[in-house]
């Protein structure tokens, strides 16, 4: 390891901890959100350093785009009128502070001890995954784990995402964040340039996922970011959440996934046990559905649902 690499590692690690501290200690909420966005960027660089390009891709889409915009939209909403969000009194008393500091220190110590107590070499499933890649529907190990070996987990994850939308809808409507008109012409010009590239990149990431870092998660987040950009620029109109087509598209990932599971079950194999030769096609179909579901889920959580009264207007 050269000195430059060592300096890079030290700088990345230390600045990550410093940034987390500044984010959490920021005097204003807005400052905390902007610092958190910067935190996402540094995290993406760390994932790159740790040979985890899949996660770096997801972090780039989530940290740089999605989380920041969701937080800013919520902040804009909270700052409307008087902020009447019930906020409890901050912690008082040195004893409580001490206990809290000890808890945090305890967590750090426990994690460190657990790390140092690991057997050498540490337990790893790489030895079980890598030899089976030939028979799997995807040659990229992470995709193979997500959509072949542990496809059940991913199926349930998509169900959880849909559940979040259903739960959000069941709370009644929250107002759609109304964009201001400032600078809309320039912005709309930009969106007209970026949007095709964003959709193209999403497709590219799904296709890459079969054999290289990429896949439905990253593609779905890019799609969601593109959709939110469309809404923010005023080019896209808030949609009617009750429309059947919108709901069908939202659930398409789960439908396709469940359909494949039932199909493979009927064919005599186990559920999601892809027949030889069909694995690649089936995984691609599932991933396209997942991309749609993930993208639309985040757009739905951002945009909220329109009031029934507003719809009639």
């Amino acid at each position, binding site marked *: 390891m050269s000195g430059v690499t060592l300096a890079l*590692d030290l700088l990345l*690690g230390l600045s990550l*901890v410093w940034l*987390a501290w500044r984010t*959490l*200690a920021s005097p204003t*909420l807005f400052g905390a*959100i902007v610092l*958190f966005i910067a935190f996402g960027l540094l*995290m993406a660089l*760390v*994932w790159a*350093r*740790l*040979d*985890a390009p899949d*996660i770096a891709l*997801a*972090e780039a889409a*989530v940290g740089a785009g*999605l*989380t920041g915009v*969701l*937080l800013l939209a*919520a*902040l804009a*909403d*909270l700052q409307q009128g*008087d*902020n*009447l969000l*019930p906020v*409890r*009194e901050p912690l008082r008393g040195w004893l409580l*502070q001490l206990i*809290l*500091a000890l*808890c*945090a220190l305890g*967590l*750090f110590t426990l*994690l460190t001890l657990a790390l140092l107590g*690991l057997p050498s*070499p*540490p337990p*790893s*499933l*790489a030895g079980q*995954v890598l030899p089976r890649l030939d028979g799997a529907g995807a040659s990229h*190990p992470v995709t193979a*784990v997500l959509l072949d070996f542990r496809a059940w987990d991913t199926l349930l*994850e998509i169900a959880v*995402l849909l559940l979040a939308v259903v739960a959000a809808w069941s*709370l009644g409507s929250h107002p759609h964040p109304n964009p201001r008109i400032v600078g809309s012409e320039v912005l709309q010009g930009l969106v007209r340039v970026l949007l095709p590239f964003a959709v193209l990149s999403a497709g590219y990431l799904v296709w890459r996922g079969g054999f290289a870092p990429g896949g439905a*998660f990253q593609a779905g*987040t890019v799609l969601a970011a593109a959709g939110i950009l469309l809404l923010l620029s005023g080019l896209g109109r808030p949609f009617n959440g009750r429309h059947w087509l919108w709901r069908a598209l939202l659930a398409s990932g789960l439908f396709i996934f469940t359909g494949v599971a039932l199909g493979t079950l009927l064919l005599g194999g186990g559920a999601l046990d892809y027949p030889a030769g069909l694995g690649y096609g089936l995984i691609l179909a599932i991933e396209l559905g997942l991309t749609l579901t993930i993208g639309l889920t*985040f757009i739905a*959580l*951002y945009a*909220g649902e329109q009031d029934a009264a507003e719809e009639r207007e």
Partner: protein
Amino acid sequence: MNMALWFTLVGAALAAIALHAFFSRRHPLRRLIALNIMGSGIFLVLIGLARLYPGTLPDPVPHAMVLTGIVVAVSATAFGLVLLRRLARLGRGET
């Protein structure tokens, strides 16, 4: 020092700082951010573990887990923000 071990320690530190902030800060938006940073710290520990020994290939299973974790964390954050906005509207006496 081993590079992956260094980053797992960074992850543990992040989780500890965020845990502290989660309980000492009271604004819900700050708590959501703290929760997200805590998650990042834990993910960092997992991925650091996956390539702790440079000779072996990185273990793809934690990578898949963290990928799932990131997506679930964002959707949980988004849902938390929906709850917050609802709470604020109730506070203003709107329905």
